[in-house]
């Protein structure tokens, strides 16, 4: 846990983009959700979101994935860097091929705000009411 300039607690994790670390990534996201008091259903949705984003990074052959989690302005926010493109039908490394194009739609179903501020970066957030 680190502190940013305005003292908002921030939890960070960087992992190699290797399949073996998928469980670490989603466990981290779920634990961070519980840490900030999110309900269990939302926590499980965020576990799935983290797994999908990490999977995307592995499929896109990224080197590393960095998670940053914070609560700000009544929202729980997770910024993930290194995920690669979410919609690329010609991507190599896709395991089954059937899920092409669906991952971004799945994310938007699971959380109410998904933003792509730059290539390979996604910021998802959910309401966090004290």
């Amino acid at each position, binding site marked *: 846990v680190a502190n940013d300039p305005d003292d908002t607690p921030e939890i960070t994790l960087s992992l190699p983009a*290797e399949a073996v670390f998928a469980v670490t990534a989603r466990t981290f996201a779920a634990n961070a959700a519980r840490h900030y008091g999110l309900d269990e259903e939302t926590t499980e949705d965020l576990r799935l979101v983290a797994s999908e984003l990490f999977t995307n990074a592995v499929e896109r052959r990224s080197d590393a994935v960095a998670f940053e989690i914070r609560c700000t302005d009544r929202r729980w926010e997770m910024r993930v860097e290194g995920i690669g493109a979410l919609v690329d039908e010609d991507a190599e490394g896709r395991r089954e091929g059937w*899920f092409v194009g*669906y991952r971004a739609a799945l994310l938007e*179903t699971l959380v109410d705000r998904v933003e792509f501020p730059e290539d390979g970066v996604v910021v998802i957030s959910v309401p966090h009411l004290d």
Partner: protein
Amino acid sequence: MSGPPWRTCWTRATPDLIEAYWRTEEGIVIDLTLDTRSHGGWTVVAVRGELDLYTAPQLREHVVQLADDASGRLVIDLDEVGFIDSSGLGVIVACLKRCREQGGDLVLVAPEQSPVTKLLALTGLTSAIPVAASIDDVTG
């Protein structure tokens, strides 16, 4: 890149049982167990653990072999799967396709309120993949 020094993996496999173990600093964790048996004319693969891009290929390899060798009527029991993502679901879709190519069929067993049924609903695959609440509902 080799694995981290604090985590090593090995697999124990018999004709009916596959277990993947991890040795961690906290002890030994079984990531995925595949237990195969016959029940009412069906071949049942009971899965325990979590299905993601790391573990799902084990299920695919096992079920594809069964689809080629067995009678073609397969049940994948996901009652004890605590987590599944699109990688796991993709493998299930591949297994279903393989079974049907072999002239057989594949049915999933999963409780109504489970990660599996939720992901099927989210991805719109509920009507594409047969799901039963219990093995008895399949083999009846």
